[in-house]
């Protein structure tokens, strides 16, 4: 199953994928604070059906980086 990075981030914040900017990152996307980061990781873990390992979780800092991570998981 393939997952979309913006969809998973949107799920974490109860918003549509379109509401997540293409260049969103923990540096520039307001909802992406420390609690938001927890929600994103939970959203990704729920989608992939397993806990992320530390190296994977550390990669999640932007839409692009999540996209790269998902490409390796999908």
């Amino acid at each position, binding site marked *: 199953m393939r997952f979309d990075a913006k969809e998973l981030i949107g799920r974490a914040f109860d918003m549509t994928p379109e509401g997540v900017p293409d260049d969103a990152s923990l540096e520039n996307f307001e909802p992406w604070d420390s609690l938001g980061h*927890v929600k994103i990781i939970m959203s990704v873990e729920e989608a992939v059906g397993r806990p992320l390992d*530390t190296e994977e979780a*550390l990669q999640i800092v932007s839409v692009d980086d999540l996209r790269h991570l998902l490409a390796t998981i999908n």
Partner: protein
Amino acid sequence: MKQPRLENGILSLNSERFILRTLLPDDVSQRYVDWLNDPEINRYLEVKIPQTIEAVRSYVAGHDRRTGFLFGIFDNENRHIGNISLVIDERHDVGTIGVTIGERDYWGKNVVQEARQAVIEYAFGELELFKLSGGCKSSNVPAVYNYQRQGWKLDGIRKAHNVDRMGKRVDIVFFCKFRSDWQAERETAGAQHEI
């Protein structure tokens, strides 16, 4: 490393919202001890519980304010809300920072990054350290976020190095910041300010 300049044996640093002041044993209150014994607060800390006021005073006294600093974080009403430590290995010009926010009403309010930035400025700007490090359990996602958001680099992962409260082994993630990173950040911030 340059030597710290203390006033009456105390070192104070200012951030936008807080004063960071090195603690003395007499600063240890029952409230502070209660933080350490609170399961939700000590969840990610490496402290033996139960803690006593005598044990915490002894811990505070163990910081010599030359290579070991334990700052209390005080808000604008002089309320002690947490601590941040800087422990220096002067042989190698490196320091390790640790932070605890004890008052729950300050959780999620960017206290960690703001207080840590004040210590970063002091460690690199005044003491001229070469490198700072910090670490947390991998399961402490908000702490990991704070390091990444503040531009710390991954320094290494110690696999399955700790056991969490549920008995599960967790990794310890180490982050670092070099003086050269800090200087580059300042130059970038300065350039943006000029624009």
